């Protein structure tokens, strides 16, 4: 392995670019075929819901949802405080104090809430999924599943997907509220805004549709995180180091995909729904 690395480093930049494009192309193909398998597994699950492994689903709901709640809530709360504080300092200069609740509320609910929850979930759940499936591959458990006549994709992906798609929106909703609370504390402490006023202002600015946007995004992110984590797990090599690499790449790729999706969705929501 090392010898090959040395050789490529001595080669020209063009060759390296070619190498990287080849890898990217192969990975893209494997991602597409994995998504295909996952979709067909989903279709199968819809047709025969009794075959879904509900016990595992509950286990993952517990792991992604209730176990992740304290840290997610804390991070969203702190995000609200940071955002509120930075805005308060700037806006106070222009006497625009009254807009603080609207600014914090809209930013948190429409963007930062879903995003922060998704990033925490990537670190907690996405990496765990990749590590779990990668380890199962190393210990021949995936092989054992196949020779028992099971579809590992259905077995391993569907429970995680259902659990994530249900819990992440709930976490996001709680995270949104915590973020607004964080802003409220700053508004009260540093701008002297009464809690009552802050609350009314928030309600005025943050339309109920924004919560729909929040939840919609979080479902998309949940699917992205789960599929990326599982995909990297299935792509892992056959030793312990490969499992570590799969975990790292699951986190990096999943954050990249989340941001790409968010860019796209921000545009879609602003032009189509709220345009």
């Amino acid at each position, binding site marked *: 392995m090392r010898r090959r690395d040395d050789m490529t480093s001595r080669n020209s930049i063009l060759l390296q670019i070619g190498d990287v494009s080849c890898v990217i192309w192969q990975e893209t193909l494997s991602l597409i075929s994995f998504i295909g398998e996952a979709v067909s597994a989903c279709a199968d699950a819809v047709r025969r819901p009794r075959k879904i492994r509900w016990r595992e689903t509950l286990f993952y709901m517990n792991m992604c949802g209730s176990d992740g709640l304290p840290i997610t809530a804390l991070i969203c709360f702190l995000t609200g405080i940071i955002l509120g504080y930075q805005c308060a300092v700037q806006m106070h200069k222009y006497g625009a104090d009254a807009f603080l609740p609207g600014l914090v509320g809209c930013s948190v609910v429409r963007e930062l809430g879903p995003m922060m929850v998704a990033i925490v979930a990537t670190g907690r759940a996405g990496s765990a999924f990749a590590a779990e499936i990668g380890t*199962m591959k190393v210990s021949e458990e995936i092989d054992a599943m196949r020779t028992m006549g099971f579809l590992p994709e259905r077995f391993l992906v569907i429970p995680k997907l259902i659990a994530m798609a249900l819990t992440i929106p709930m976490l996001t909703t709680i995270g949104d509220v915590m973020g607004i609370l964080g802003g409220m504390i700053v508004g009260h402490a540093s701008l002297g805004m009464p809690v009552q006023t802050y609350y009314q202002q928030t309600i005025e600015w943050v339309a109920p549709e924004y919560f729909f946007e929040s939840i919609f995004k979080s479902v998309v992110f949940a699917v992205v995180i789960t599929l990326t984590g599982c995909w990297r797990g299935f792509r892992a090599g056959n030793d312990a180091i490969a499992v570590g690499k799969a975990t790292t790449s699951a986190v990096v790729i999943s954050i990249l995909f989340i941001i790409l999706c968010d860019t796209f969705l921000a545009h879609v929501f602003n032009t189509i729904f709220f345009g």
Partner: protein
Amino acid sequence: MTQNAISVKNLTAGYGRRIVLENISFDVPQGQILTILGGSGCGKSTLLKHMIGLRTPFAGDILLHGKSIVSSTGNRKRAIMRRFGVAYQGGALFRSLSLAENIALPMEEHTKMSREEIREKVREKLRLVNLDGYQDYMPSDLSGGMVKRAAFARSLALDPDILFFDEPSAGLDPLSSASLDRLILDIREKTAATIVVVTHELESIFTIADRAVMLDANTKSIIADGPPLELKKHSANSFVRLFLNAGHDPADHSHEGGIHAGDK
């Protein structure tokens, strides 16, 4: 006409560009216990992985009960797979499930048995390998030998008519190892199953096997095929004789001591 349970036809297999097995053919009749022998790294597990359909060969075909596992895909492949049981070299128990759940899983998924029936069946399988009472243990709480026995029990879950074992008795104490050998003979007696065992243990080779097939890393092919006791005494290949006599070649007294696989 009696059909062969397994037939391997001109199999060439390997990893990437590297060929590990070249042009291998053999048939296993129904009810035979076949052991696959050979030095470490000669491709025994590789051969097994091809026979159970986990890898696609470079060339050749493998038929299980007359159906090609190489060329079938999807549901048809899974249907073939359901008819055999495999115990993997490392156990490959599902770590997130307890011992009982591990064994119950194939029954839950592939049969219409009730919970009670499944519980009773799991108990029966665990009793076979002396693990009754460990139903609720997680695989991580078991010793290596117990994991092996549990994997063995799981491979029997659906009462398959072909069984594949990759080194079932490696790492077991002599007593468990001997009882596993007896169990293998017992299963064949009761169910007439065809059994393929990869093993290094000379003791169990001579106890259980009707036939031994020996692979070699240099020639990448079969260097001996026949009843183990016969091979032990009369094989034309001196390496085969050395292997089966634990390093003491009865035909060559100048050579007492170790196995010298390299010098032929």
